[in-house]
């Protein structure tokens, strides 16, 4: 497992190692380059999704592929078994109490990893997902807020276009109010003028009536005065004769 790390580290460090080999340490310090050009660290290259494949949790797959052309599928296993038996039989590896503790410790570890490995991996993935979700939510909220602000601004602009309606309505209202006041005053003026004219007319009428009455009274008074006593006696005697005649006529008619 660390074998791959060493390979990749060596590959990454190889160019700089070459440079370091050529220059002395002092010169290397002096020619170190700082902060030129674009930031080389961003964006960070993506992490590989799966680790390297291993067999038995320890030995990388490349080793088996390496031995396959010469020894086939069982080659590495035979090598491993042979090595273990060699170490045991020649007592290069001595069986001590440490062996027993090894068996118990490693057995316990393998059991724990097999049992809880998947759930721990899931937990770790969930942690990462939660982190991303939190940041994503902030981003979405910010975008939504800005979008809402834009929409509101657009609506306000549309409203400003329609402002003239408001002013028209107000203008009409004021014109109507002015018109009403004007007509009201006109009517009042008319009424006042009519009032005064009516007064003059009624004064004239009254004067004429008074004059008529006065004239009639004067004429009657003069006529009455002008009737002498003689004429009055003759008129009364004639009236009595006419009445007698009428009475005779009236008596004669109902008998029939």
């Amino acid at each position, binding site marked *: 497992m660390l074998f791959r790390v060493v390979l990749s580290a060596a590959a990454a460090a190889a160019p700089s190692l070459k440079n370091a080999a050529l220059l002395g340490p002092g010169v290397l310090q002096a020619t170190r380059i700082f902060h030129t050009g674009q930031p080389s660290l961003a964006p960070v290259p993506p992490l590989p999704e799966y680790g390297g494949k291993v067999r038995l949790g320890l030995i990388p797959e490349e080793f088996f592929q390496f031995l396959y052309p010469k020894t086939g599928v069982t080659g590495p296993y035979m090598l491993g078994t042979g090595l273990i038996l060699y170490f045991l039989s020649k007592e290069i590896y001595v069986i001590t109490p440490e062996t027993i503790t090894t068996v118990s410790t490693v057995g316990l570890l393998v059991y724990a990893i097999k049992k809880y490995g998947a759930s721990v991996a899931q937990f770790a*993935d969930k942690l990462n997902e939660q982190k991303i979700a939190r940041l994503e939510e902030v981003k979405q909220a910010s975008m939504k807020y800005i979008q809402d602000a834009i929409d509101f601004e657009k609506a306000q602009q549309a409203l400003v276009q329609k402002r003239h309606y408001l002013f028209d309505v107000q203008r009409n209202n004021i014109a109507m109010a002015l018109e009403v006041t004007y007509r009201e005053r006109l009517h009042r003026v008319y009424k006042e003028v009519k009032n005064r004219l009516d007064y003059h007319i009624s004064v004239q009428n009254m004067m004429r009536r008074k004059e008529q009455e006065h004239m009639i009274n004067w004429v009657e008074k003069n006529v009455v005065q002008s009737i002498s006593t003689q004429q009055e006696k003759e008129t009364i005697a004639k009236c009595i004769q006419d009445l007698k005649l009428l009475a005779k006529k009236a008596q004669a008619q109902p008998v029939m």
Partner: protein
Amino acid sequence: MNENLFASFATPTLMGLPVVLLIIMFPMLLYPPSNRLITNRLSAIQQWLVKLILKQLMSIHNTKGRTWSLMLISLILFIGSTNLLGLLPHSFTPTTQLSMNLGMAIPLWAGAVIMGFRHKTKSSLAHFLPQGTPIPLIPMLIIIETISLFIQPMALAIRLTANITAGHLLMHLIGGATLALMSISTTTAFITFIILLLLTMLEFAVALIQAYVFTLLVSLYLHDNT
């Protein structure tokens, strides 16, 4: 026999070179730093663990005490990982050496106490006398409290050393018993092996618990003195 028992606790040298420094620095490789936001599963779990421990450990401290957060988290991670790595076969556990544990305990304890005496002298001195003691007992109690104060770093170091060493020794002894019994009576050997399994589980727990206890006590000493 005696020599073999304690051979695993000898400072490891490789052809005369002290390799123990490399062994102490090895757990650092297991906590890969990363400049990414979304890391692999290992880093994600480690970040989550550190956050959990940090919240739990530093919630009781005030601002001054929280400046020690990095120190305490490094401490618990170091002791925990060193203890756990020591459970692997044929490995060396640095925390079994009293020298290293004293080197961890004394500076931390001394730092906390001296800081307490410098900044809050009255309150630190007041710790020497618990509340509500009858007056005749005061002189004796002050002596006893002083002794208990100075025992704290010793207790921290020796507790860690003794626990881990005892655990390793017990595992070695019971493994030896199983080995010896295998040729005598397989059933007893099997029973002993079961005991060994249980002990191994305990050792895993102890490894973590001791780390926690160490750090917790340092945190408590800090809390008293800030």
